[in-house]
Protein backbone atom coordinates (compact mmCIF):
# COMPACT_ATOMS: atom_id res chain seq x y z
CA UNK A 1 0.00 0.00 0.00
CA UNK A 2 1.06 3.55 -0.68
CA UNK A 3 -0.79 6.84 -0.56
CA UNK A 4 0.26 9.15 -3.37
CA UNK A 5 -1.55 10.76 -6.28
CA UNK A 6 0.91 9.49 -8.90
CA UNK A 7 2.44 6.02 -8.76
CA UNK A 8 3.22 5.69 -12.46
CA UNK A 9 6.64 4.20 -13.18
CA UNK A 10 8.41 1.96 -15.67
CA UNK A 11 8.34 -1.81 -15.36
CA UNK A 12 12.09 -1.95 -14.75
CA UNK A 13 11.77 0.33 -11.76
CA UNK A 14 8.70 -1.45 -10.40
CA UNK A 15 10.30 -4.91 -10.58
CA UNK A 16 13.60 -3.61 -9.29
CA UNK A 17 11.94 -1.99 -6.27
CA UNK A 18 9.28 -4.50 -5.38
CA UNK A 19 10.53 -7.93 -6.54
CA UNK A 20 13.94 -8.67 -5.00
CA UNK A 21 15.51 -12.13 -4.94
CA UNK A 22 13.66 -14.31 -2.44
CA UNK A 23 10.46 -12.29 -2.63
CA UNK A 24 7.17 -13.96 -1.74
CA UNK A 25 5.13 -13.34 -4.81
CA UNK A 26 1.48 -13.73 -5.83
CA UNK A 27 0.32 -13.61 -9.43
CA UNK A 28 -3.08 -12.41 -10.60
CA UNK A 29 -5.11 -13.82 -13.46
CA UNK A 30 -6.13 -17.42 -14.13
CA UNK A 31 -4.68 -20.13 -16.41
CA UNK A 32 -4.56 -18.43 -19.85
CA UNK A 33 -6.27 -15.18 -18.89
CA UNK A 34 -4.93 -11.84 -17.62
CA UNK A 35 -1.64 -13.21 -16.29
CA UNK A 36 0.77 -10.34 -15.54
CA UNK A 37 3.09 -11.58 -18.29
CA UNK A 38 5.02 -8.36 -18.94
CA UNK A 39 6.01 -8.30 -15.26
CA UNK A 40 6.85 -12.02 -15.37
CA UNK A 41 9.19 -11.52 -18.34
CA UNK A 42 10.85 -8.55 -16.64
CA UNK A 43 11.47 -10.72 -13.56
CA UNK A 44 13.01 -13.43 -15.76
CA UNK A 45 15.16 -10.88 -17.63
CA UNK A 46 16.46 -9.64 -14.29
CA UNK A 47 17.25 -13.27 -13.41
CA UNK A 48 15.56 -13.13 -10.05
CA UNK A 49 16.18 -16.19 -7.88
CA UNK A 50 14.59 -18.03 -4.97
CA UNK A 51 11.13 -16.63 -5.42
CA UNK A 52 8.38 -18.09 -3.25
CA UNK A 53 5.20 -18.23 -5.33
CA UNK A 54 1.60 -18.27 -4.11
CA UNK A 55 -0.79 -19.30 -6.85
CA UNK A 56 -4.33 -20.56 -7.21
CA UNK A 57 -4.73 -21.54 -10.88
CA UNK A 58 -1.93 -19.67 -12.49
CA UNK A 59 -0.86 -21.13 -15.75
CA UNK A 60 1.43 -19.30 -18.12
CA UNK A 61 3.02 -16.93 -15.61
CA UNK A 62 3.94 -19.65 -13.14
CA UNK A 63 5.26 -21.98 -15.82
CA UNK A 64 7.62 -19.42 -17.33
CA UNK A 65 8.95 -18.31 -13.91
CA UNK A 66 9.52 -21.93 -12.89
CA UNK A 67 11.04 -22.80 -16.26
CA UNK A 68 13.46 -19.88 -16.08
CA UNK A 69 14.73 -21.04 -12.70
CA UNK A 70 13.42 -18.06 -10.73
CA UNK A 71 11.37 -20.15 -8.30
CA UNK A 72 12.51 -22.02 -5.20
CA UNK A 73 9.15 -22.80 -3.64
CA UNK A 74 5.56 -22.75 -4.72
CA UNK A 75 2.22 -23.09 -2.95
CA UNK A 76 -0.32 -23.86 -5.60
CA UNK A 77 -3.73 -25.30 -6.47
CA UNK A 78 -3.43 -25.83 -10.20
CA UNK A 79 -0.76 -25.42 -12.85
CA UNK A 80 -2.27 -25.61 -16.31
CA UNK A 81 -3.47 -23.49 -19.20
CA UNK A 82 -6.47 -25.51 -20.27
CA UNK A 83 -6.20 -27.34 -23.58
CA UNK A 84 -2.82 -25.76 -24.41
CA UNK A 85 -1.17 -27.51 -21.48
CA UNK A 86 -3.46 -29.49 -19.15
CA UNK A 87 -0.44 -29.63 -16.83
CA UNK A 88 2.12 -26.85 -17.17
CA UNK A 89 5.14 -28.46 -18.74
CA UNK A 90 8.08 -26.71 -17.08
CA UNK A 91 6.28 -26.92 -13.74
CA UNK A 92 5.80 -30.66 -14.21
CA UNK A 93 9.46 -31.19 -15.10
CA UNK A 94 10.67 -29.11 -12.16
CA UNK A 95 8.65 -31.21 -9.72
CA UNK A 96 9.47 -34.57 -11.30
CA UNK A 97 13.16 -33.65 -11.25
CA UNK A 98 13.04 -32.35 -7.68
CA UNK A 99 14.12 -28.84 -8.59
CA UNK A 100 11.48 -26.93 -6.64
CA UNK A 101 9.76 -27.33 -3.30
CA UNK A 102 5.99 -27.28 -3.51
CA UNK A 103 2.81 -27.70 -1.50
CA UNK A 104 -0.67 -28.43 -2.84
CA UNK A 105 -3.97 -26.75 -1.99
CA UNK A 106 -7.31 -26.42 -3.73
CA UNK A 107 -8.40 -23.29 -5.57
CA UNK A 108 -10.88 -22.34 -2.89
CA UNK A 109 -8.35 -22.93 -0.15
CA UNK A 110 -5.84 -20.65 -1.91
CA UNK A 111 -8.55 -18.05 -2.50
CA UNK A 112 -9.49 -18.15 1.19
CA UNK A 113 -5.83 -17.92 2.16
CA UNK A 114 -5.51 -14.71 0.15
CA UNK A 115 -8.82 -13.51 1.58
CA UNK A 116 -7.61 -14.21 5.14
CA UNK A 117 -4.50 -12.13 4.39
CA UNK A 118 -6.69 -9.37 3.00
CA UNK A 119 -8.93 -9.50 6.09
CA UNK A 120 -6.02 -9.47 8.52
CA UNK A 121 -7.07 -12.71 10.23
CA UNK A 122 -4.80 -15.75 10.73
CA UNK A 123 -7.15 -18.25 9.06
CA UNK A 124 -10.51 -18.84 7.45
CA UNK A 125 -12.71 -21.96 7.63
CA UNK A 126 -13.99 -24.17 4.83
CA UNK A 127 -15.29 -27.70 4.40
CA UNK A 128 -13.02 -28.22 1.44
CA UNK A 129 -10.52 -31.03 1.71
CA UNK A 130 -11.89 -33.07 4.64
CA UNK A 131 -10.79 -36.67 4.13
CA UNK A 132 -8.24 -35.88 1.40
CA UNK A 133 -4.47 -35.97 0.99
CA UNK A 134 -4.49 -32.20 0.60
CA UNK A 135 -5.04 -32.26 4.35
CA UNK A 136 -2.85 -35.28 5.09
CA UNK A 137 0.22 -34.60 2.95
CA UNK A 138 2.43 -31.56 3.58
CA UNK A 139 4.90 -30.22 1.05
CA UNK A 140 6.92 -28.41 3.71
CA UNK A 141 7.73 -30.48 6.78
CA UNK A 142 7.10 -29.43 10.36
CA UNK A 143 10.87 -28.83 10.72
CA UNK A 144 11.09 -26.60 7.66
CA UNK A 145 8.09 -24.66 8.94
CA UNK A 146 9.47 -24.28 12.43
CA UNK A 147 12.69 -22.84 10.99
CA UNK A 148 11.04 -20.33 8.66
CA UNK A 149 9.00 -17.48 10.13
CA UNK A 150 7.48 -16.85 6.69
CA UNK A 151 5.71 -20.24 6.78
CA UNK A 152 2.75 -21.03 9.03
CA UNK A 153 3.55 -23.71 11.59
CA UNK A 154 0.93 -26.02 10.10
CA UNK A 155 -0.35 -26.56 6.60
CA UNK A 156 -4.02 -26.92 7.50
CA UNK A 157 -5.85 -27.53 10.78
CA UNK A 158 -9.12 -29.42 11.29
CA UNK A 159 -11.32 -27.75 13.90
CA UNK A 160 -14.49 -29.08 15.56
CA UNK A 161 -17.41 -26.65 15.26
CA UNK A 162 -17.40 -24.62 18.49
CA UNK A 163 -21.06 -23.71 17.88
CA UNK A 164 -22.22 -27.34 18.21
CA UNK A 165 -24.01 -28.48 15.08
CA UNK A 166 -24.74 -24.90 13.91
CA UNK A 167 -24.99 -24.83 10.11
CA UNK A 168 -25.16 -28.65 10.22
CA UNK A 169 -21.40 -28.75 10.36
CA UNK A 170 -19.35 -31.03 12.59
CA UNK A 171 -15.92 -29.75 11.66
CA UNK A 172 -14.12 -27.44 9.29
CA UNK A 173 -10.67 -27.08 7.75
CA UNK A 174 -8.86 -23.89 8.77
CA UNK A 175 -6.58 -22.50 6.06
CA UNK A 176 -3.77 -20.11 7.10
CA UNK A 177 -3.53 -16.56 5.74
CA UNK A 178 -1.07 -15.58 3.03
CA UNK A 179 0.61 -12.19 3.09
CA UNK A 180 2.77 -11.93 -0.05
CA UNK A 181 5.53 -9.35 -0.22
CA UNK A 182 4.12 -8.34 -3.54
CA UNK A 183 1.21 -9.15 -5.82
CA UNK A 184 1.49 -8.60 -9.57
CA UNK A 185 -1.69 -7.85 -11.50
CA UNK A 186 -2.54 -6.96 -15.04
CA UNK A 187 -5.77 -4.94 -15.46
CA UNK A 188 -7.56 -3.22 -18.28
CA UNK A 189 -7.59 0.30 -16.83
CA UNK A 190 -5.76 2.04 -14.02
CA UNK A 191 -5.48 5.63 -12.82
CA UNK A 192 -2.19 7.18 -11.65
CA UNK A 193 -3.17 6.77 -7.98
CA UNK A 194 -3.64 3.02 -8.45
CA UNK A 195 -7.41 2.84 -8.80
CA UNK A 196 -8.12 -0.20 -11.01
CA UNK A 197 -11.08 -1.19 -13.13
CA UNK A 198 -11.11 -4.83 -14.21
CA UNK A 199 -13.43 -5.86 -17.03
CA UNK A 200 -14.97 -9.32 -16.83
CA UNK A 201 -14.02 -11.88 -14.21
CA UNK A 202 -11.77 -10.60 -11.42
CA UNK A 203 -10.68 -14.16 -10.45
CA UNK A 204 -8.94 -13.70 -7.06
CA UNK A 205 -7.17 -10.47 -8.03
CA UNK A 206 -9.04 -8.46 -5.40
CA UNK A 207 -8.05 -10.78 -2.58
CA UNK A 208 -4.47 -11.14 -3.84
CA UNK A 209 -4.01 -7.37 -4.03
CA UNK A 210 -5.42 -6.68 -0.58
CA UNK A 211 -3.42 -9.50 1.02
CA UNK A 212 -0.05 -8.17 -0.16
CA UNK A 213 2.34 -5.68 1.38
CA UNK A 214 2.95 -4.22 -2.07
CA UNK A 215 1.00 -4.31 -5.32
CA UNK A 216 2.40 -3.72 -8.80
CA UNK A 217 -0.28 -3.16 -11.42
CA UNK A 218 0.38 -3.26 -15.14
CA UNK A 219 -2.46 -1.92 -17.26
CA UNK A 220 -3.56 -1.80 -20.86
CA UNK A 221 -4.63 1.82 -20.47
CA UNK A 222 -3.46 4.47 -18.07
CA UNK A 223 -6.43 6.81 -17.67
CA UNK A 224 -6.65 10.30 -16.23
CA UNK A 225 -6.82 10.83 -12.46
CA UNK A 226 -10.58 11.43 -12.54
CA UNK A 227 -11.57 9.01 -15.29
CA UNK A 228 -12.53 6.09 -13.03
CA UNK A 229 -14.18 8.14 -10.30
CA UNK A 230 -17.50 8.66 -12.05
CA UNK A 231 -18.62 5.09 -11.32
CA UNK A 232 -16.53 3.99 -8.34
CA UNK A 233 -18.58 0.82 -7.88
CA UNK A 234 -16.91 -0.50 -11.05
CA UNK A 235 -13.42 -0.23 -9.54
CA UNK A 236 -12.41 -3.47 -7.83
CA UNK A 237 -9.17 -2.10 -6.36
CA UNK A 238 -8.90 1.24 -4.57
CA UNK A 239 -5.78 3.33 -5.13
CA UNK A 240 -4.52 3.02 -1.55
CA UNK A 241 -3.52 -0.64 -1.83
CA UNK A 242 -1.40 -0.11 -4.96
CA UNK A 243 2.32 0.82 -4.99
CA UNK A 244 3.16 1.04 -8.68
CA UNK A 245 1.15 1.63 -11.84
CA UNK A 246 2.84 0.60 -15.08
CA UNK A 247 1.18 1.14 -18.45
CA UNK A 248 2.02 -1.88 -20.64
CA UNK A 249 -0.12 -2.47 -23.73
CA UNK A 250 -0.50 -6.22 -24.34
CA UNK A 251 0.82 -6.73 -20.83
CA UNK A 252 -1.02 -10.06 -20.52
CA UNK A 253 0.10 -11.44 -23.89
CA UNK A 254 0.20 -14.36 -24.77
CA UNK A 255 -2.68 -14.79 -22.27
CA UNK A 256 -6.02 -13.05 -22.83
CA UNK A 257 -7.20 -9.65 -21.67
CA UNK A 258 -11.00 -9.52 -21.88
CA UNK A 259 -12.34 -6.77 -24.16
CA UNK A 260 -8.80 -6.06 -25.46
CA UNK A 261 -7.40 -9.26 -26.93
CA UNK A 262 -7.67 -13.02 -26.77
CA UNK A 263 -5.01 -15.54 -25.86
CA UNK A 264 -2.73 -16.31 -28.79
CA UNK A 265 -3.25 -19.98 -29.66
CA UNK A 266 -0.34 -19.95 -32.10
CA UNK A 267 2.06 -18.71 -29.47
CA UNK A 268 0.73 -21.02 -26.76
CA UNK A 269 1.02 -24.05 -29.05
CA UNK A 270 4.57 -23.03 -29.99
CA UNK A 271 5.29 -22.55 -26.30
CA UNK A 272 4.14 -26.10 -25.56
CA UNK A 273 6.50 -27.44 -28.17
CA UNK A 274 9.36 -25.35 -26.81
CA UNK A 275 8.70 -26.27 -23.19
CA UNK A 276 8.78 -30.00 -23.92
CA UNK A 277 12.43 -30.08 -24.92
CA UNK A 278 15.45 -28.72 -23.00
CA UNK A 279 17.30 -27.30 -25.98
CA UNK A 280 14.23 -25.69 -27.49
CA UNK A 281 13.31 -24.32 -24.06
CA UNK A 282 16.70 -22.63 -23.68
CA UNK A 283 16.28 -21.18 -27.16
CA UNK A 284 12.81 -19.94 -26.30
CA UNK A 285 14.04 -18.13 -23.20
CA UNK A 286 16.95 -16.61 -25.07
CA UNK A 287 14.95 -15.48 -28.05
CA UNK A 288 11.68 -14.44 -26.44
CA UNK A 289 12.77 -13.17 -23.05
CA UNK A 290 16.46 -12.41 -22.52
CA UNK A 291 17.04 -10.96 -25.98
CA UNK A 292 14.03 -8.66 -25.69
CA UNK A 293 14.84 -5.27 -24.19
CA UNK A 294 11.27 -4.94 -22.97
CA UNK A 295 7.69 -6.13 -23.47
CA UNK A 296 7.08 -3.67 -26.30
CA UNK A 297 9.87 -5.35 -28.28
CA UNK A 298 8.32 -8.75 -27.63
CA UNK A 299 4.95 -7.51 -28.85
CA UNK A 300 6.54 -5.90 -31.89
CA UNK A 301 8.01 -9.30 -32.76
CA UNK A 302 4.54 -10.87 -32.98
CA UNK A 303 2.73 -7.89 -34.43
CA UNK A 304 1.44 -9.77 -37.47
CA UNK A 305 -0.54 -12.01 -35.13
CA UNK A 306 -2.21 -9.30 -33.13
CA UNK A 307 -5.01 -8.61 -35.58
CA UNK A 308 -6.24 -12.20 -35.23
CA UNK A 309 -6.62 -11.91 -31.45
CA UNK A 310 -8.27 -8.47 -31.23
CA UNK A 311 -11.38 -8.64 -29.03
CA UNK A 312 -14.75 -8.40 -30.69
CA UNK A 313 -16.64 -5.53 -29.00
CA UNK A 314 -19.73 -7.73 -28.76
CA UNK A 315 -18.17 -10.76 -27.06
CA UNK A 316 -14.99 -9.38 -25.49
CA UNK A 317 -12.86 -12.10 -27.16
CA UNK A 318 -11.75 -12.85 -30.73
CA UNK A 319 -14.95 -14.40 -32.08
CA UNK A 320 -14.25 -17.28 -34.42
CA UNK A 321 -10.53 -17.34 -33.63
CA UNK A 322 -8.85 -20.42 -35.05
CA UNK A 323 -7.84 -22.31 -31.92
Amino acid at each position, binding site marked *: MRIAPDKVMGLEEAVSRFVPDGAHLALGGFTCNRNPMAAVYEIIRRRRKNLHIYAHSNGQGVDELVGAGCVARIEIAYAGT*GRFAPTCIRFRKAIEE*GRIAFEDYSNYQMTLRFLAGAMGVPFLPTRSGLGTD*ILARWGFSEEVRAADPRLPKKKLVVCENPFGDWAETDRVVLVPAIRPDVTLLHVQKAAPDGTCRIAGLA*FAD*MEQARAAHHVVVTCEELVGPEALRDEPERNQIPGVVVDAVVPVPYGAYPTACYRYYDYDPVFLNDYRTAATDERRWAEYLERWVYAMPDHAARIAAVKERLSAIQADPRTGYATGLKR
Partner: protein
Amino acid sequence: MEYTRRELMTLAAARKIRDGEIVFCGTGISMLAAMAAKHIYAPNSVIIFETGAVDSRLEEIPLAVGDPRVMYGASSCTGLADAFALMQNPTTGCHVVGILGAAQIDRYGNLNSTAIGEYLRPKVRFSGSGGACDVASFVDRTILFMQHERRKFVNRVDYLTSPGWLDGKDGRRRAGLPGVGPEAVITDLAVMAFDPESREMFLEAWYPGGSPQEVLAHMEFAVDVSRARELEPPSARELKILREVVDPQRLILG
Protein backbone atom coordinates in the same frame (compact mmCIF):
# COMPACT_ATOMS: atom_id res chain seq x y z
CA MET B 1 -25.59 -43.23 -37.46
CA GLU B 2 -21.86 -43.29 -36.83
CA TYR B 3 -20.52 -41.71 -33.66
CA THR B 4 -17.27 -41.56 -31.71
CA ARG B 5 -16.78 -42.84 -28.19
CA ARG B 6 -16.06 -39.26 -27.11
CA GLU B 7 -19.44 -38.21 -28.45
CA LEU B 8 -21.18 -40.98 -26.57
CA MET B 9 -19.25 -40.14 -23.36
CA THR B 10 -20.37 -36.55 -23.65
CA LEU B 11 -23.99 -37.53 -24.17
CA ALA B 12 -23.95 -40.18 -21.43
CA ALA B 13 -22.94 -37.49 -18.95
CA ALA B 14 -25.29 -34.88 -20.37
CA ARG B 15 -28.24 -37.26 -20.01
CA LYS B 16 -27.66 -37.32 -16.25
CA ILE B 17 -28.15 -33.56 -15.85
CA ARG B 18 -31.66 -32.55 -14.79
CA ASP B 19 -33.51 -29.45 -15.83
CA GLY B 20 -33.21 -26.64 -13.29
CA GLU B 21 -29.87 -27.83 -11.95
CA ILE B 22 -26.73 -25.75 -11.57
CA VAL B 23 -23.94 -27.40 -13.51
CA PHE B 24 -20.35 -26.91 -12.42
CA CYS B 25 -17.97 -27.23 -15.33
CA GLY B 26 -14.31 -28.01 -15.42
CA THR B 27 -12.15 -27.89 -18.51
CA GLY B 28 -12.55 -30.08 -21.58
CA ILE B 29 -15.19 -32.75 -21.99
CA SER B 30 -17.09 -31.69 -18.86
CA MET B 31 -17.72 -28.34 -20.56
CA LEU B 32 -19.09 -30.21 -23.59
CA ALA B 33 -21.39 -32.31 -21.43
CA ALA B 34 -22.80 -29.24 -19.68
CA MET B 35 -23.40 -27.47 -22.97
CA ALA B 36 -24.97 -30.56 -24.52
CA ALA B 37 -27.29 -30.95 -21.52
CA LYS B 38 -28.41 -27.33 -21.76
CA HIS B 39 -29.03 -27.55 -25.50
CA ILE B 40 -30.67 -30.98 -25.52
CA TYR B 41 -32.29 -31.99 -22.21
CA ALA B 42 -32.08 -29.27 -19.57
CA PRO B 43 -32.78 -25.84 -21.06
CA ASN B 44 -33.21 -24.30 -17.60
CA SER B 45 -29.93 -25.60 -16.24
CA VAL B 46 -27.47 -22.94 -15.17
CA ILE B 47 -23.79 -23.35 -16.08
CA ILE B 48 -21.29 -22.01 -13.56
CA PHE B 49 -17.51 -21.84 -13.47
CA GLU B 50 -15.21 -21.68 -10.47
CA THR B 51 -13.74 -18.51 -11.94
CA GLY B 52 -16.96 -16.70 -10.98
CA ALA B 53 -19.15 -16.79 -14.10
CA VAL B 54 -22.75 -17.74 -13.30
CA ASP B 55 -25.22 -18.78 -16.01
CA SER B 56 -22.79 -18.42 -18.90
CA ARG B 57 -24.29 -18.52 -22.37
CA LEU B 58 -21.19 -20.06 -23.97
CA GLU B 59 -21.55 -18.96 -27.55
CA GLU B 60 -18.15 -20.55 -28.27
CA ILE B 61 -16.55 -23.40 -26.40
CA PRO B 62 -14.00 -22.29 -23.79
CA LEU B 63 -10.65 -24.10 -23.74
CA ALA B 64 -10.15 -23.42 -20.02
CA VAL B 65 -12.37 -22.25 -17.16
CA GLY B 66 -10.39 -19.00 -17.29
CA ASP B 67 -11.13 -18.55 -20.99
CA PRO B 68 -12.85 -15.18 -21.67
CA ARG B 69 -15.57 -17.19 -23.45
CA VAL B 70 -17.01 -18.25 -20.07
CA MET B 71 -17.97 -14.61 -19.42
CA TYR B 72 -20.22 -14.25 -22.44
CA GLY B 73 -23.81 -13.39 -21.56
CA ALA B 74 -23.45 -14.45 -17.93
CA SER B 75 -25.82 -13.37 -15.17
CA SER B 76 -22.84 -12.29 -13.09
CA CYS B 77 -19.05 -12.43 -13.29
CA THR B 78 -17.34 -11.97 -9.95
CA GLY B 79 -14.49 -14.22 -8.87
CA LEU B 80 -13.44 -17.47 -7.25
CA ALA B 81 -14.47 -16.58 -3.69
CA ASP B 82 -18.04 -16.04 -4.75
CA ALA B 83 -18.25 -19.08 -7.04
CA PHE B 84 -17.02 -21.53 -4.42
CA ALA B 85 -19.22 -19.95 -1.73
CA LEU B 86 -22.21 -20.60 -3.98
CA MET B 87 -21.24 -24.27 -4.08
CA GLN B 88 -20.38 -24.63 -0.38
CA ASN B 89 -23.61 -22.87 0.67
CA PRO B 90 -26.18 -25.68 1.07
CA THR B 91 -29.10 -23.61 -0.31
CA THR B 92 -27.49 -23.34 -3.72
CA GLY B 93 -24.92 -26.13 -3.34
CA CYS B 94 -27.54 -28.86 -3.09
CA HIS B 95 -28.74 -27.96 -6.59
CA VAL B 96 -25.26 -28.20 -8.07
CA VAL B 97 -24.06 -31.14 -10.10
CA GLY B 98 -20.30 -31.11 -10.54
CA ILE B 99 -18.58 -32.69 -13.53
CA LEU B 100 -14.98 -33.68 -12.85
CA GLY B 101 -12.18 -35.67 -14.38
CA ALA B 102 -9.00 -37.16 -12.93
CA ALA B 103 -5.93 -39.30 -13.57
CA GLN B 104 -6.88 -42.07 -11.11
CA ILE B 105 -10.06 -43.28 -9.45
CA ASP B 106 -10.75 -45.95 -6.83
CA ARG B 107 -13.84 -48.09 -6.17
CA TYR B 108 -15.38 -45.36 -4.02
CA GLY B 109 -14.95 -42.62 -6.59
CA ASN B 110 -12.05 -40.91 -4.85
CA LEU B 111 -9.98 -39.01 -7.41
CA ASN B 112 -6.32 -38.26 -7.97
CA SER B 113 -5.38 -35.33 -10.17
CA THR B 114 -2.15 -34.49 -8.38
CA ALA B 115 0.61 -37.08 -8.80
CA ILE B 116 1.51 -40.68 -9.64
CA GLY B 117 4.15 -42.18 -7.35
CA GLU B 118 5.57 -40.47 -4.31
CA TYR B 119 3.90 -37.12 -3.66
CA LEU B 120 7.13 -35.24 -3.02
CA ARG B 121 9.09 -36.83 -5.88
CA PRO B 122 6.44 -38.15 -8.24
CA LYS B 123 6.85 -40.28 -11.33
CA VAL B 124 4.24 -38.13 -13.04
CA ARG B 125 3.02 -34.79 -11.82
CA PHE B 126 -0.39 -33.44 -12.86
CA SER B 127 -1.93 -30.02 -12.58
CA GLY B 128 -3.24 -30.47 -9.03
CA SER B 129 -6.71 -30.04 -7.63
CA GLY B 130 -7.73 -26.68 -9.02
CA GLY B 131 -11.34 -26.47 -7.91
CA ALA B 132 -11.92 -30.25 -8.10
CA CYS B 133 -11.37 -30.97 -4.40
CA ASP B 134 -13.64 -28.06 -3.50
CA VAL B 135 -16.46 -29.14 -5.77
CA ALA B 136 -16.18 -32.78 -4.71
CA SER B 137 -16.25 -31.61 -1.08
CA PHE B 138 -19.30 -29.35 -1.34
CA VAL B 139 -21.81 -30.06 -4.03
CA ASP B 140 -24.73 -32.41 -3.93
CA ARG B 141 -23.62 -34.88 -6.55
CA THR B 142 -20.80 -35.30 -9.00
CA ILE B 143 -20.41 -36.98 -12.35
CA LEU B 144 -16.89 -38.17 -13.10
CA PHE B 145 -15.15 -38.55 -16.45
CA MET B 146 -12.37 -41.14 -16.79
CA GLN B 147 -10.45 -42.92 -19.49
CA HIS B 148 -11.11 -46.60 -18.86
CA GLU B 149 -7.61 -47.94 -18.27
CA ARG B 150 -6.32 -50.43 -15.74
CA ARG B 151 -3.71 -47.99 -14.43
CA LYS B 152 -6.45 -45.42 -13.86
CA PHE B 153 -9.06 -47.59 -12.09
CA VAL B 154 -6.86 -48.53 -9.14
CA ASN B 155 -7.23 -50.18 -5.77
CA ARG B 156 -5.80 -47.14 -4.08
CA VAL B 157 -5.20 -43.71 -5.55
CA ASP B 158 -1.61 -42.51 -5.15
CA TYR B 159 -2.89 -39.16 -3.84
CA LEU B 160 -6.49 -38.50 -2.80
CA THR B 161 -7.10 -35.08 -4.36
CA SER B 162 -10.90 -34.98 -4.45
CA PRO B 163 -13.16 -36.89 -2.06
CA GLY B 164 -15.56 -39.44 -3.45
CA TRP B 165 -17.29 -41.75 -0.97
CA LEU B 166 -13.94 -42.00 0.92
CA ASP B 167 -13.98 -45.48 2.53
CA GLY B 168 -17.59 -46.13 1.54
CA LYS B 169 -20.91 -46.35 3.45
CA ASP B 170 -21.30 -43.15 5.49
CA GLY B 171 -17.63 -42.19 5.07
CA ARG B 172 -18.45 -38.74 3.77
CA ARG B 173 -20.68 -37.93 6.71
CA ARG B 174 -18.09 -39.22 9.16
CA ALA B 175 -15.45 -37.01 7.60
CA GLY B 176 -17.76 -34.00 7.95
CA LEU B 177 -18.48 -33.57 4.26
CA PRO B 178 -21.87 -32.36 3.04
CA GLY B 179 -23.49 -33.36 -0.25
CA VAL B 180 -24.52 -36.68 -1.66
CA GLY B 181 -21.31 -37.68 -3.43
CA PRO B 182 -20.31 -39.23 -6.76
CA GLU B 183 -23.22 -40.53 -8.78
CA ALA B 184 -21.66 -41.87 -11.95
CA VAL B 185 -18.38 -42.42 -13.74
CA ILE B 186 -18.54 -41.92 -17.49
CA THR B 187 -15.71 -43.61 -19.35
CA ASP B 188 -14.86 -44.44 -22.94
CA LEU B 189 -16.23 -47.96 -22.33
CA ALA B 190 -19.06 -47.68 -19.84
CA VAL B 191 -21.18 -45.86 -17.33
CA MET B 192 -20.45 -46.85 -13.75
CA ALA B 193 -22.64 -46.06 -10.74
CA PHE B 194 -22.29 -46.42 -6.94
CA ASP B 195 -24.27 -48.74 -4.72
CA PRO B 196 -26.60 -46.73 -2.46
CA GLU B 197 -25.52 -48.73 0.63
CA SER B 198 -21.90 -49.73 0.26
CA ARG B 199 -21.04 -46.82 -2.07
CA GLU B 200 -18.96 -49.22 -4.12
CA MET B 201 -18.74 -48.73 -7.86
CA PHE B 202 -20.75 -51.06 -10.11
CA LEU B 203 -21.31 -51.31 -13.82
CA GLU B 204 -24.50 -49.54 -14.88
CA ALA B 205 -24.14 -49.83 -18.66
CA TRP B 206 -21.58 -50.79 -21.27
CA TYR B 207 -21.30 -49.11 -24.60
CA PRO B 208 -22.88 -50.63 -27.70
CA GLY B 209 -20.48 -53.13 -29.17
CA GLY B 210 -18.66 -53.67 -25.87
CA SER B 211 -19.27 -56.04 -22.95
CA PRO B 212 -19.04 -56.22 -19.16
CA GLN B 213 -15.96 -58.42 -19.64
CA GLU B 214 -14.21 -55.76 -21.65
CA VAL B 215 -14.95 -53.21 -18.91
CA LEU B 216 -13.60 -55.48 -16.17
CA ALA B 217 -10.45 -56.16 -18.16
CA HIS B 218 -9.63 -52.47 -17.98
CA MET B 219 -9.76 -52.11 -14.20
CA GLU B 220 -7.43 -53.06 -11.36
CA PHE B 221 -10.43 -53.83 -9.10
CA ALA B 222 -13.53 -55.91 -9.86
CA VAL B 223 -17.02 -54.46 -9.79
CA ASP B 224 -20.51 -55.91 -9.75
CA VAL B 225 -21.81 -56.29 -13.31
CA SER B 226 -25.11 -57.96 -12.43
CA ARG B 227 -27.13 -54.76 -12.75
CA ALA B 228 -25.62 -53.76 -16.10
CA ARG B 229 -27.32 -53.20 -19.46
CA GLU B 230 -26.20 -51.94 -22.83
CA LEU B 231 -26.37 -48.14 -23.17
CA GLU B 232 -28.71 -46.58 -25.72
CA PRO B 233 -26.67 -45.24 -28.62
CA PRO B 234 -26.87 -41.51 -29.38
CA SER B 235 -29.96 -40.40 -31.26
CA ALA B 236 -29.68 -38.44 -34.48
CA ARG B 237 -30.98 -35.36 -32.66
CA GLU B 238 -28.41 -35.66 -29.87
CA LEU B 239 -25.58 -35.98 -32.35
CA LYS B 240 -26.85 -33.16 -34.51
CA ILE B 241 -26.97 -30.67 -31.63
CA LEU B 242 -23.65 -31.85 -30.24
CA ARG B 243 -21.92 -31.47 -33.60
CA GLU B 244 -23.65 -28.40 -34.96
CA VAL B 245 -24.35 -26.30 -31.88
CA VAL B 246 -22.10 -27.41 -29.04
CA ASP B 247 -18.71 -27.94 -30.68
CA PRO B 248 -18.92 -27.23 -34.40
CA GLN B 249 -15.15 -26.66 -34.56
CA ARG B 250 -14.59 -30.04 -32.80
CA LEU B 251 -12.21 -28.29 -30.41
CA ILE B 252 -12.99 -30.79 -27.67
CA LEU B 253 -14.77 -33.53 -29.61
CA GLY B 254 -11.52 -33.97 -31.54
